[in-house]
């Protein structure tokens, strides 16, 4: 495929930014659902307990670290696949 020229690249960049925004919002709401489901189970009060809060913090942090690690491995595997394709 031909490479994009400067004007096309600009247009594509806009598209990428829109998608990143959407992706970020999706990640946010998914993470809220996940950590809420896994951590919040006590409904004797309308405030989060300290235990629940700790769980939510760990849940969110851990997910982001997980996603970072998957990203690293994803890149490595992608490069490996490209090298094999070129051979």
């Amino acid at each position, binding site marked *: *495929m*031909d490479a*994009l*020229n400067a*004007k*096309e690249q600009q*247009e*594509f960049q806009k*598209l*990428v930014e829109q*998608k990143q925004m959407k*992706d970020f919002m999706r990640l946010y709401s998914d993470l809220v659902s996940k950590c809420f489901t*896994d*951590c919040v189970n006590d409904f004797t009060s309308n405030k989060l307990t300290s235990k629940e809060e700790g*769980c939510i*913090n*760990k*849940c969110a*942090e*851990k*997910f982001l*670290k*997980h*996603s970072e*690690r*998957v*990203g690293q*491995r*994803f890149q490595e*595997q992608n490069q490996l*696949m490209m090298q094999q394709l070129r051979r």
Partner: protein
Amino acid sequence: MSFLGLGGSPNVSSQAKIQAAEAELDMVTGMFNQLVDICHKKCIGTSYNASDLDKNESLCVDRCVAKYFDTNLKVGDSMQKVGQNGAFGVNR
């Protein structure tokens, strides 16, 4: 198709190029997002005793990604074979 016939044919290929780039971006980000979700389900425990991945979880994630790529290739091979055998009525 160019908008109101303005710009002529250069616009057509320009749009097509951007669409192709978009499709590729969607495929890669889609695959990545799926991978994050699937490997999280398979590897990360839900007790959340720590905010770091422990040794087993890290190892599991690494293997999960590698095996997902392998699975991808295997399914691709099978699909190609099915295509060559003229299933789906494609090659008839």
